[in-house]
């Protein structure tokens, strides 16, 4: 089990009802974190236009996560 802090943004935050939470998860990749928290962030399409960052660096869904990492879950962006 790894201790992972998950941060939610925009619609994900509204769905989760919290900005962030620290969870004990049996996960290997950023994708695993996304799937484990699906019920909270309310999306079933991680490979779509959603993005992920680990410890404030943009990451791939296949990127590995380590104990103590912060995983940021980004719904589809809309700048400008």
């Amino acid at each position: 089990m790894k201790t992972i802090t998950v941060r939610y943004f925009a619609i994900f935050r509204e769905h989760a009802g919290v900005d962030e939470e620290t969870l004990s998860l049996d996960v290997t990749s950023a994708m695993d974190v996304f799937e484990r928290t699906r019920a909270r962030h309310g999306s079933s399409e991680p490979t779509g236009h959603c993005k992920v960052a680990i410890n404030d660096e943009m990451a791939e869904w296949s990127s590995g996560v380590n104990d103590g990492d912060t995983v940021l879950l980004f719904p589809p962006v809309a700048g400008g």
Partner: protein
Amino acid sequence: MFEISENDIAIDALREQMKDPGAGGYCVFEGRVRNENEGRMVERLEYEVYEPLAVKEGERVLEEAQQRFPYLLAFCVHRSGLLEIGDCAVWVGVAAAHRDEAFQACRYIIDEIKVRLPVWKKEHYAGGDSGWVNCERCASVLRQSKDQNGKGS
């Protein structure tokens, strides 16, 4: 230079900074809040920005533009927070030796900013409801999922 601003973008001050004696062309783009989107009347807009990564990615976009369309000066400022109709949501200015680089760099910057930065836009409609732009599909998936699973675990 890329910045996130919680207040009105200081356009006059930005323009003052865009001066270079070698600049023959200066191109500016302003994205403004319009009163309509996809057929719905918009009353105001809210931008959520994750600033640490937005700034990092914004700076990267300016560097890429510099590589492709060498310019003399470029600035970009993106708003966060609540905006009214007509407010400037994003400002891009590029000064270059010639107009072609100025136009192309400016266009590159705004096009990339719109799709790459961790920025989310919530529209508040005339009817009183609101919606996250580009997230309606996610939301509908959620609603189905909640209907099936009760209150979402």
